[in-house]
């Protein structure tokens, strides 16, 4: 762990570029930016392809990934050219690149931990915990749904099991026979050998001990004795395909490492069962690589269990869900062996019960003492009674609607109520709806009967079809009462919409772009989204039901159930394609950002988990290197580039132009404000010159003395006094401004051009002439003001570090102007900060624009 101060030291301890001409430093910084931008463009391009709005192929993916790998390497080289102390990033690049190559080879499932607690599954681990576990982890995090606690055995363990038991060459043989596809007898023979070998496989070394640790952790959190359910979680299971019942589940397993392992290897062997192999061959004839994970969860002692279909497959565009339940465990229902009660619910808000079809339930499945399940006759009074009462049905119905809204397609859900009446979701997977020829033929005809509200308008951020009631969002507070399954219609796109995306059927905005953060989030969550739909707010009303078809950029009045049914029958194929699956896995490992806060301890090369993290680290590090350039006064002045700046306030600034920061005709000294062409520096100076912020009007007693201490180099330098010049290094789009105002030291470093992601502001403030308490109060005051302007701020004693980035140029200029005012406003305020209340007073005054308070007193 690095302490805050180690991080500061890391960033500030180096001045190795002091022999470089500042023009060279800046040019090298620009090279880092260029290469980072190219990499981010490639990532954005790849992300856009996931929207479904493009035709692309494997060649495109392969070429893009290669270019990305090279470009990232260029970024690391460029950063080291700027500051050679970042050689360790080459190793980070290599580590991340190896993972990408493993994904391209479909071997990324061989990495990572052996076991992961379900609560701790990270999105980067989705491919190794398997689809079913990944879904369950999402339910825990995003919907706060109760699932039985437990852990995942990853696909890495499966590969270890294969290696440890000497089965790798047999698996390779199986895969190549699969691809060849013309020797079914040989394939069948290898399949049988693998199935048999896995059923008696030996545990890899220390594996039982690791299981034991997970079991101990579960025991510590569970008050009463429990048994376990060991279920398959294959790589693709639940993500796009149902794989319903293809693999083995072992129920009511004793909580010992040996029993768990014995159940696990049976599950692993079921990857090679006849029916699973046949199903997979039908689904992915061209992809023989497969692996399997498992979920080990506490076995629920069920009162009543069953299955729910969030949509009636017989009426795929309709609004009816089906719930089937029985007393005890639900295994018999899922396998179709037990009769159950069937309930039809209307998916309104709230859901209502439409129909109850009860059947005689002579027996039920219950936990057997020796393990497994046992069939027991049911008491007469239960046999004809509905297994679910109204409250239970409505609670379940609510959950089912939530799950369908979250996964954006009909769900096939296994659920159970325990003996205490608590509802658990055991599994939620896509419900496959068969498409009929009629559906396609009738679609064109049916669509003629619906009124079109929007035709051929807007841009596609995410493909798809969604129907629901309009919920207009004019400001963030409108998100508070967003109804489940509604369509968000907004004035402009906003990443704040992420709060309701898992509940939204679609998003439509009047202004926006398919490359915004919101669009990226829509692709991640598969929310159909149209942006730039001119006038949409005047075409729809709150509460009105509409259907959005982003594929053909049209919006219908009402619920077009034919279109919804058609969508169900085709979109699954698209997600199932090898290219989409590969792209999703690549982006999952490239585009996610974990290093969000450069001021946190975690902001280190070791913690870069994706290319995006690495790019972020490189950018921040390059900025810090630039910031340090301004600190090194002697080096800057050595090159004889400095000219004095003539301002109406006595700020005494020397200016060094490294390209386009001054007009060509600017004089060699006494440069007037009008000759400044540096966009960010002009913005700061505008703020400093703003009426009353420099408290020129009524100068307090002693001001001149203080001012002289600021502008000269005193001979009796006090401890902690910063001496030297105030220097601004500028270009057209850049400023590095260092104030050495006697007792405090202040840096503003900003890059500002028309590309949002090039832009940053770095602000650092340290010291003051008064005692530490007052200096710390000033630090708090600055921090509060900067926080109000959306800076990311960190303070320690009298040090304030604040950063902001990724802003539009106009916003940058506005914020830099504010910083200019702040510099003037706070210059000597620490003298007056004699109480915490005074801090609040001056913060408030600044935020109200009441700058004169600093000169009134």
């Amino acid at each position, binding site marked *: 762990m690095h302490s805050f101060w180690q991080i500061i030291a890391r960033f500030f301890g180096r001045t190795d570029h002091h022999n470089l001409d500042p023009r060279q430093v800046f040019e090298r910084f620009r090279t880092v930016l260029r290469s980072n931008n190219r990499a981010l463009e490639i990532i954005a391009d790849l992300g856009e*392809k996931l929207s479904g*709005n*493009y*035709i*692309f*192929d*494997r*060649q*495109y993916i392969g*070429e893009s990934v290669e270019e990305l790998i090279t470009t990232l390497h260029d970024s690391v080289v460029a950063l080291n050219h700027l500051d050679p102390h970042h050689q360790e990033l080459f190793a980070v690049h290599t580590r991340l690149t190896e993972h990408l190559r493993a994904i391209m080879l479909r071997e990324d499932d061989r990495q990572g931990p052996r076991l992961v607690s379900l609560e701790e599954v990270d999105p980067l681990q989705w491919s190794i915990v398997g689809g079913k576990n990944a879904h369950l982890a999402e339910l825990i995090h995003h919907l706060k749904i109760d699932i039985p606690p437990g852990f995942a055995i990853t696909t890495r363990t499966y590969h270890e099991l294969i290696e440890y038991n000497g089965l790798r060459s047999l698996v390779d043989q199986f895969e190549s026979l699969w691809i060849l596809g013309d020797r079914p007898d040989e394939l069948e023979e290898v399949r049988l050998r693998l199935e048999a070998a896995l059923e008696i496989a030996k545990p890899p070394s220390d594996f039982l001990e690791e299981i034991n640790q997970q079991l101990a952790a579960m025991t510590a959190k569970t008050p009463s004795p429990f048994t376990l359910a060991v279920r398959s979680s294959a790589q693709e299971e639940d993500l796009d395909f149902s794989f319903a019942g293809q693999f083995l589940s072992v129920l009511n397993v004793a909580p010992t490492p040996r029993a768990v392992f014995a159940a696990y290897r049976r599950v692993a062997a079921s990857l090679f069962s006849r029916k699973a192999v046949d199903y997979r061959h039908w689904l992915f004839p061209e992809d023989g690589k497969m692996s399997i994970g498992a979920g080990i969860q506490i076995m629920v002692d069920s009162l009543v269990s069953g299955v729910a279909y969030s949509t009636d497959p017989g009426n795929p565009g309709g609004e009816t869900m089906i719930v089937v339940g029985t007393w005890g465990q639900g295994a018999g229902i899922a396998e179709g062996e037990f009769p159950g009660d069937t309930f039809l619910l209307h998916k309104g808000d709230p859901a209502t019960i439409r129909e109850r079809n009860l059947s005689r339930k002579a027996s039920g499945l219950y936990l057997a003492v020796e393990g497994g399940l046992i069939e027991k006759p049911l008491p007469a009074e239960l046999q004809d009674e509905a297994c679910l009462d109204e409250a239970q049905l409505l609670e379940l119905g609510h959950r089912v609607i939530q799950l369908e809204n979250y996964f954006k397609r009909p769900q096939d859900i296994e659920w159970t109520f325990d003996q205490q009446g608590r509802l658990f979701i055991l599994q939620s997977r896509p419900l496959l709806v068969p498409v009929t020829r009629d559906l*396609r033929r009738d*679609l*064109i005809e049916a*669509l003629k009967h619906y009124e079109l509200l929007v035709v*051929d308008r807007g841009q*596609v951020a995410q493909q798809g079809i969604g129907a629901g009631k309009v919920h207009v969002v004019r400001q963030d507070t409108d998100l508070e009462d967003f109804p489940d399954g509604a369509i968000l219609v907004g004035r402009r796109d906003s990443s704040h919409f992420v709060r309701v995306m898992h509940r939204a059927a679609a998003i439509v905005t009047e202004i926006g772009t398919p490359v915004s953060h919101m669009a990226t989030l829509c692709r991640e969550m598969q929310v159909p989204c149209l942006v730039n739909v001119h006038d949409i707010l005047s075409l729809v009303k709150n509460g009105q039901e509409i259907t959005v078809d982003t*594929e*053909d*950029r049209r919006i219908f009045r009402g619920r077009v159930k034919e279109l919804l049914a*058609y969508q169900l029958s*085709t979109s699954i*194929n*698209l997600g199932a*394609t*090898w*290219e*989409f699956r590969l792209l999703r896995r690549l982006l999952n490992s490239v585009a996610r950002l974990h290093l969000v806060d450069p001021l946190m301890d975690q902001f280190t090369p070791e913690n870069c988990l994706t290319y995006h993290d690495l790019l972020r680290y490189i950018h921040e590090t390059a900025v810090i290197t630039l910031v340090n350039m301004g600190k090194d006064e002697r080096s800057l002045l050595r090159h004889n580039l400095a000219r004095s700046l003539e301002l109406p306030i006595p700020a005494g600034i020397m200016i060094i132009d490294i390209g386009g920061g001054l007009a060509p005709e600017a004089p060699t000294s006494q440069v007037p404000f009008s000759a400044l062409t540096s966009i960010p520096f002009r913005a700061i100076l505008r703020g400093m010159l703003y009426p009353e912020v420099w408290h020129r009007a009524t100068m307090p007693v002693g001001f001149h003395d203080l001012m002289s201490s600021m502008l000269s180099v005193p001979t009796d330098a006090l401890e902690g006094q910063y001496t030297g010049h105030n220097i601004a290094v500028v270009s057209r789009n850049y400023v590095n401004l260092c104030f050495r105002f006697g007792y405090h030291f202040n840096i503003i470093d900003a890059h500002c051009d028309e590309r949002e992601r090039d832009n940053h502001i770095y602000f650092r403030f340290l010291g003051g002439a008064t005692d530490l308490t007052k200096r710390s109060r000033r630090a708090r005051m600055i921090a509060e003001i900067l926080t109000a302007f959306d800076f990311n701020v960190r303070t320690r004693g009298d040090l304030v570090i604040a950063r902001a980035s990724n802003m539009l140029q106009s916003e940058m200029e506005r914020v830099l102007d504010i910083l200019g005012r702040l510099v003037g406003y706070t210059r000597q305020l620490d003298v007056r900060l004699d109480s915490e209340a005074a801090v609040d007073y001056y913060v408030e005054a600044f935020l109200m624009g009441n700058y004169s308070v600093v000169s009134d007193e």
Partner: protein
Amino acid sequence: MVVGSNSEPRRLLIIDDEAIVGKRLNQIFTKMGYVVEAHIDPVQAVAAAEQHPFDIVVTDLKMQGMDGLEVLRRVKKINPRTRVIIITGYAEMDTADAAFSGGVFDFIPKPFRLDEIKDAILRAVSDMAGDG
């Protein structure tokens, strides 16, 4: 957007050795009312065209067995009125020149947006209507 509501629907042939291209375009244009056939093997595709000619052919350029320029020659021979659109990841100018001199209707570099291909197909359809 919807074609063929009063007359016979237009017949569309898609040839690309990467299956996803045909799958996706099939989905899109079936929904728009076209009769779509997608092939990953250009030789089989041309054989299908010989059986029952197509109005519009969308073909990849570089494929095993037969390249897009050869597909262009063959389908034009079967039915000179067929409009051929070539899609390719290798956008080279001289190939494009060769394609245009061979009577290609349009040339679209991959990857492309759905509205780009939709637009090309709609233009091809109205161009054919001009044939009378």
